[in-house]
């Protein structure tokens, strides 16, 4: 029986995640980019006629999530591939030979961190938009309104799930460039493909991450044909679980 367990591995992963600069740069960039897009959207609508609605401002000011998902997805990938690329993975597996315990710890620590950063970034987008429209006739959106609070929270969840898809893809591919490229491809290519089918593409499009983000998760009311926001967010978590499971199966049999 091993003396160590998930708790020990999680402490190791927490120290590792916090002690490389890329973690902090990617997290800060995700928050800044969402705040900036939110503010930019607000400024753009200030003198817009007809006067924008609260929903218009909110939906568009969360648009920075398109960039933030790439940053946090890369963060999730690097948590795994950063170790393979440098040989660190051998130190890690020598310390904790039960590899799935390591993967579970990475999922918990990286997922928790990315969810936190995702929520902060999402709130920054909301806040940027609201601050930029102050003093105009555009109605303010209150977080006390469930229709406003829901997309802000779900966008944070979406970003956290994207980081976990990154962890799964990183575990499968083990190479930073290949895994980040694949992750970005998974985010954008399906949307382009669905677009080719026009109106009828929606039946498939509602399962596509970026379309879910822009039309179901980060909006006050989903466009017809798409799932409710929370269903889309759960679907993203399901994709993450699938990627992590596949990675976990291969992890056991491959040489480190």
């Amino acid at each position, binding site marked *: 029986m091993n003396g160590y367990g998930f708790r020990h591995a999680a402490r190791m992963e927490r*120290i590792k995640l916090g*002690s490389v600069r890329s973690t902090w740069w990617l997290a800060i960039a995700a928050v800044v980019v969402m705040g900036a897009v939110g503010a930019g959207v607000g400024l753009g609508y200030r003198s817009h006629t007809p006067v924008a609605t609260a929903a218009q401002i909110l939906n568009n000011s969360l648009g920075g999530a398109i960039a933030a998902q790439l940053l946090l997805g890369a963060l999730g990938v690097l948590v795994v591939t950063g170790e393979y690329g*440098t040989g*660190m993975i051998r130190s890690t597996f020598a310390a904790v*030979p039960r590899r799935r315990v390591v993967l579970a710890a990475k999922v918990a620590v990286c997922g928790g961190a990315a969810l936190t950063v995702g929520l902060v970034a999402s709130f920054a987008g909301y806040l940027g938009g609201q601050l930029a429209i102050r003093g105009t006739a555009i109605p303010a959106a209150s977080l006390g309104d469930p229709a406003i609070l829901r997309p802000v929270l779900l966008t944070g969840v979406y970003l956290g799930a994207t980081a976990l898809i990154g962890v799964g893809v990183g575990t499968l591919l083990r190479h930073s460039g290949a895994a980040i490229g694949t992750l970005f491809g998974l985010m954008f290519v399906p949307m382009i493909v669905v677009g080719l089918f026009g109106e009828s593409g929606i039946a498939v499009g509602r399962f596509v991450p970026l379309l879910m983000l822009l039309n179901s998760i980060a909006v006050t009311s989903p466009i017809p044909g798409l799932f409710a926001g929370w269903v889309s967010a759960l679907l993203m978590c399901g994709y993450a679980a699938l990627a992590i499971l596949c990675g976990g199966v291969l992890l056991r049999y491959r*040489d480190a």
Partner: protein
Amino acid sequence: MVPSVDWVIELRELTKRYGGRVAVDGLSVDVRPGVVTGFLGPNGSGKSTTMRMILGLDAPDRGQALIGGVPYADLRWPLKTVGALLDAGAVHPGRSARAHLAALAASNDIPRSRVEQVLRVVGLSEAANRRAGTYSLGMRQRLGVAVALLGDPGVLLLDEPVNGLDPEGIRWIRDLLRGLAAEGRTVFVSSHLIAEMALTAERLVVIGRGRLLAETTVDDLAAGADSLEDAFFRLTSQDTDYRGVGAS
């Protein structure tokens, strides 16, 4: 410390293939506590692969590697039982030595004070907050030694520890390893430098092309040859994969 059977490394018919190439071929050896055992062989003879299989990083195709009778993966606290210096690259270049050690210490419930202790032992206390990517090869080797010592283990596995060390560092590691063995620990050190092994090790395990060529002592190997180096070449001449010829 009293030598313990829990610290014996047993290799039983250990075999590893990569594609069609046999890296380690039916290797059976016992490595005992109390002495430094040198693991010698030409480049590509399977030393590092054997080390990785002992640590459970690579899975053998056949046979097994046991530590105190159990596979590495079943050890209760791996770092408190076996300390390993892997190739000096087994560290993230963006992380400081202190954070690297603190993370590994946390994984095996080793107190934080031990991190500062091993940093002092290897002489990296001053540089401990610098990113490991800025270290020289010799400093990375010292960090690797600090990782190996972290859990105060009874078994030490070191893969080419003198690579990149200056003469002072080589003497330091030699004295350190002999001291650890004298305390009753099992010390298994790979090298392709026969002269260095002659000074550090008492027992020798010599392999070539993944097969055991000799299990002997430094004294016995040197007997009957002009030098230890000649004896080594005689032993491995049929089993050296990569050999240059004189430039003309």
